[in-house]
């Protein structure tokens, strides 16, 4: 997907709508693509993303300045690789305000990064309004609205978005085990998943990974949110 180091920000203004699942798929996608992403999980103290990638994730409590330093300083001090930031809803507004105050995105560009924002548009007008506002966020190279079919979305059907297909409860439950690796699954290891669930998860990942793969051409064509 991204050919130059990219800071991927996965966020939403609403809770429990699949942010960490998307961040997790994104990290696996980047690794399958031969890249070496580092994750910053701001959902302290739980660290749901860190549970899946303990060796490549820093847990940073964005509510504290030390957490902000861990996030921004880590990224800027070690350029040249991809980063995935998992932002819980409670930190989303503050993150973007702080990024604006600190001129973080401009500094990212100076350091050679691109900035992609994945925003899960929930099934509420508030979420849609926030998404439209965030689409105009200065310094973001690509804004990607995301529809999660499990929670549904107010994002208009006729406007492009990355879609997370519906995921049946048994699969969601199976892959929520922190030992389950989506990357290993793609590489042919079902990790004990029943054959019918294997097919369903394959279809799910095929759709999501295909959409992620299509982002680079979208960016080249001048997708929404581009400066």
């Amino acid at each position, binding site marked *: 997907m991204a050919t130059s180091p990219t800071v991927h920000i996965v966020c939403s203004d609403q809770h429990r709508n699949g942010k960490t699942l998307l961040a997790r798929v994104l990290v696996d996608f980047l690794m399958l693509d031969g890249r070496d992403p580092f994750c910053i999980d701001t959902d302290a103290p739980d660290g749901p993303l860190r549970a899946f990638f303990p060796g490549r994730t820093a847990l940073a409590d964005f509510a504290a*300045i*030390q957490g*902000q*330093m861990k996030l*921004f*300083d880590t990224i*800027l001090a070690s350029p040249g690789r991809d980063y995935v930031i998992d932002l819980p809803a409670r930190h989303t507004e503050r993150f973007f305000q702080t990024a604006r*105050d*600190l*001129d*973080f995105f401009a*500094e990212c560009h100076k350091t050679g990064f691109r900035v992609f924002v994945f925003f899960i548009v929930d099934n509420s007008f508030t979420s849609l309004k926030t998404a439209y506002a965030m689409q105009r966020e200065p310094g973001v190279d690509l804004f990607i609205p995301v529809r999660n079919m499990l929670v549904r979305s107010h994002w208009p059907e006729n406007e492009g978005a990355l879609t997370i297909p519906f995921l049946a409860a048994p699969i969601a439950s199976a892959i929520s085990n922190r030992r389950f690796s989506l990357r290993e699954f793609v590489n042919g290891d079902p990790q004990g998943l029943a054959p019918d669930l294997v097919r369903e998860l394959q279809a799910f990942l095929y759709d999501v990974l295909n959409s992620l793969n299509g982002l680079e051409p979208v960016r080249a064509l001048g997708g929404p949110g581009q400066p």
Partner: protein
Amino acid sequence: MMKPTLILVGADKGGVGKTTVARSLLDYFARKNVLTRAFDTENPRGSLHRFYPAITEVVDLGNVAHQMRILDTMETANVPVTIVDLKAGNLSYSLDLFERIGVLEAARNGMFTLGLFHVVGPSIASLDEIGEIAKYLSGMQYVVARNSINETNFFEWDEATYRKYFSQIAKTQEINVPKLNEMAYEQVDVAGVTFKDFIDNRAADGSQGKFSFVLRGYVRKWCSEIDAEFAHVKMLQDVLSGGRQQ
């Protein structure tokens, strides 16, 4: 040629952010390319001197030779702005001294512009100082700098108290010194550099610094807030405009 400007920064109460205000002023003028010099009366240690060693002299205000170093050189120093950081607790003493040796009188007669940044903290004791120094303020540009170190509201919730202190002096200008994140403040302090150098990631020896991007950002934002406050102070704007507004 523009009259020289002498700016005193003081408070009778310690720990209200006096040196921070003096540093902010020096930084402000540096960012606006106005030459300054400073005198630190925190003799012999000099906390201002630590941040601006090249332009700051530590002096003892009670020493006549030192008084001469500040006052008799204002015309000849070829520096438009002189800032004196008055030792904690010495504001009334210094104003009284300047009155006795004719400095205030010279300012009243227009020989130079004299300003006082009176830094007050959120306490009645600190606010009481305003009344105590009122008698010296004729002919002087008086700025009350309210230091929001504790995000206080300076008794604005109590109109009578607020009016008692802030309305008793005509032509008082007020500025609010915004709160700077403690960690950012401490990092600048530890580094011993100016706010500007910290923002520019420059160490005290001029080499590339290793300061946190986040903390630099907080300091930059704080400086822009201070700039907005200073933009309302006539004396400072007169200096920037080369005296054309005087």
